[in-house]
């Protein structure tokens, strides 16, 4: 019996590089992939995978002082003063051929 927390094996082909760890300033991707159960009796062809976002707030219990900051103008555009809190969102529109 495998570890229940073991990652599922995923179809590697067609998985864009943005999904792999490393695109976030803190060194981890904010997007996660899961593959919903596929039945041999499904009426439609399966999507390759689905994605969801785990924003960086999920990893911060209480923000410590003196974290690196964006320059003020960039902070105004980003919505936060701290790169570690920034969460980009890739709109699903325009991700044709990719599952959402």
């Amino acid at each position: 019996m495998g570890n229940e927390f073991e990652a599922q094996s995923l179809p590697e082909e067609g998985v864009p590089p943005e999904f792999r760890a490393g695109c976030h300033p803190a060194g981890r991707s904010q997007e996660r992939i899961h593959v919903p159960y596929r039945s041999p009796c499904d009426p439609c062809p399966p999507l390759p995978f689905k994605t969801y976002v785990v924003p960086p707030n999920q990893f911060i219990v209480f923000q410590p002082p003196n974290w690196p900051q964006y320059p003020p103008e960039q902070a105004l555009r980003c919505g936060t003063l701290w790169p570690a809190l920034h969460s980009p969102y890739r709109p699903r529109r325009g991700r044709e051929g990719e599952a959402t």
Partner: protein
Amino acid sequence: MWVYEKKLQYPVRVSKCDPRMAKLLLEQYGGADGELAAALRYLNQRYSIPDKVIGLLTDIGTEEFAHLEMIATMVYKLTKDATPQQLDAAGLGPHYVAHDSALFYSNAAGVPWTAAYIQAKGDPIADLYEDIAAEEKARATYQWLIDMTDDVDLQDGLKFLREREIVHSLRFREAVEILKEEREVRKVF
């Protein structure tokens, strides 16, 4: 599908004739943070949540129906022998004219249950946070219900239900941790 066991999850004893308490208990029957809302919320969200946590939502959603039965039993015991006059004195006159002594999914103020109380956002983190919040609100509701009665037997059943909310909240927070894991990461316990 479900397998039904014709018994309660935890014995319900009500020792004090107090129809007023039936009205208050309806908050956990058909209220926003009640057991019906909880069961329907979890059993619906589970379809679009990642596979790893579907089983948890199924298990907890099922248990919420067992809790709903316990609340129903409490309300039934407190109202089945009440006269219309007694129901009226307990604030259940409006309930009586609509339902006789039948149970109905409304909250303590008589507002009928609505699906607007629950959500399925599709975003797994958002959905699980709603579930965690619902459990904590239900725990608080049980506390205030316990405060409203001096029937130690009724308090006993309510204390059991309150404790289950605490356990469920932790399980949902564990589910968030599971979904935060990166797919390549293997977690060792």
